[in-house]
């Protein structure tokens, strides 16, 4: 049996047109390359020490 209240919480308000700009700025564009570069940078710092 579904829980109506819980199911309602799964529905998120849709993004309205005037909120697009804000959403663009908030978009997280971090990808795997950024993470690898960050990991490699941390590794190089550790080696130098």
């Amino acid at each position, binding site marked *: 049996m579904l829980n109506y209240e819980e199911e309602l919480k799964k529905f998120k308000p849709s993004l309205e047109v005037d909120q697009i700009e804000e959403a*663009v700025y908030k978009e997280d564009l971090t990808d795997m390359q950024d993470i690898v570069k960050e990991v490699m940078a941390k590794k190089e710092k550790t080696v130098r020490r």
Partner: protein
Amino acid sequence: MDYTKKIMYQSNSWYNDGLRKAQVRDMSGGAIVSLQQSLQYNRENIAARNLLGLVYYGIGGEVSEALVEWIISKNLCPRDNIADYYIKNVQNSANELESLNQAIKKFNQCLVYCQQNGGEDLAIIQLKQVIASHPTFLKAYQLLALIYIQMNQNTKARQILIEAKKLDTTNELTLTYLQEVTKQRGRYGKNAERSFRKPKSATVEYSLGNETIIQPKRSKIRDMAQQLAFANILIGMVLGAALIWFLVAPAVNQNRSEKLNNQMRAYSEQINTLEAQVSAQTRTLDQYRTAGDEAQKAVDQAKATSDSYEKLLQVSSQSRSGEYSYTDMADALLEITRDSLGDSGKEMYDTLSDSIFPTACRRRYAAGVDSLESEDYDQAIEYLTKVVKMDESYNDGQAIYRLAQAYQGKGDTENAKTWYQKMVDTYNNSRYIEDAKKQLAILNGDASADTSSDTSADSSSVSEDSENSDDSNSYDNSQDNGDYDNSDNTEDNE
């Protein structure tokens, strides 16, 4: 292999997976997840980002998400980017974008309604409108299905979910709700579902396109309400008519009566004016008539004067010639109106009458008495009337007395009484006065006079006879001849 290449391969792999799922409309559970995965490996995978935007666009309510992806894509790759075409396409259809934005707002509002108690009905109405205007709005289908499931309207929920499944075949929510609906139907069966509905007799349900429309059936109460409404309209019409009759009509009638009164006043003034004119003209006409009468009188008088003079001259010439009897000349003189003559005419008239009337009176009187005795009363009246005209006091009023007797004998009581009365009034000293009084009393109906009248009448007749004899003595000369006219002629000749 360089890790960068490996990452790009991995990203492309996820892109390919997402593309494959998008082609079979495996949107939210498949394509979106794969493409997001692809972008997490390589944010500059423009194809994956553009496709992700397209998938968002395809499920209706996520147009803004699609635009976000396309804008980022364009920023990352400004040239030869199909995202530019997508953005321009959306921007060119501004009305559609605005309509879509309104649908999104309605959907968000429906979420608020659903979180409130009792807002589901309003949410259903709005969601139906959203679906009608934008049939690809997946989240609207899902929320509507959830509300139907909550209201135990599983059939409707199932229909909605089937439509939603066509938009996104592997959507987790859609499949979960479909499974729940299937469970509910299996658990309670159709009868259970019916029990949650309103009584069947109370509603009429029919499909219109993709929607199922439920209308309440006609009920007795509704029929009564309609009848009451009709009765209220009738009562209103009656009240309106009464209002017009009692308030408006009197004012209209008053105006009409005032107009009529004004017209009546105007007409009466005209009538008065015309009457005044008519009376003035009538007066003028009367004056003309009076003047005409006076003129006629003057003419008549002039004619009478002329006739009188003519006759007077005729009698004068007859008298001079000696060829005419006194009685004829006397008759001619009697036809003359003495007052119409002038002084000389009157003088001539008097001269002629003095010479003619005594003889004429004597002869006419004798003829009248003769006629009276022979009971030829008309003739007697004619002769005696002429005598009276010539000399009313002839023979001490005896001519009047005889004339009254002639009228009495004829039965003309009024004239008889008139002449008897004149005798009594005028010739009181006449020797016939007593007889005249008795006859007058008899004619007036005096009984005592009547009883004594026999003797007196007899005596009077005796005395009369004696008088006649006396009179006859006086003019027997003429009467003895028997024929008066002849005697006249002879006398005239003499």
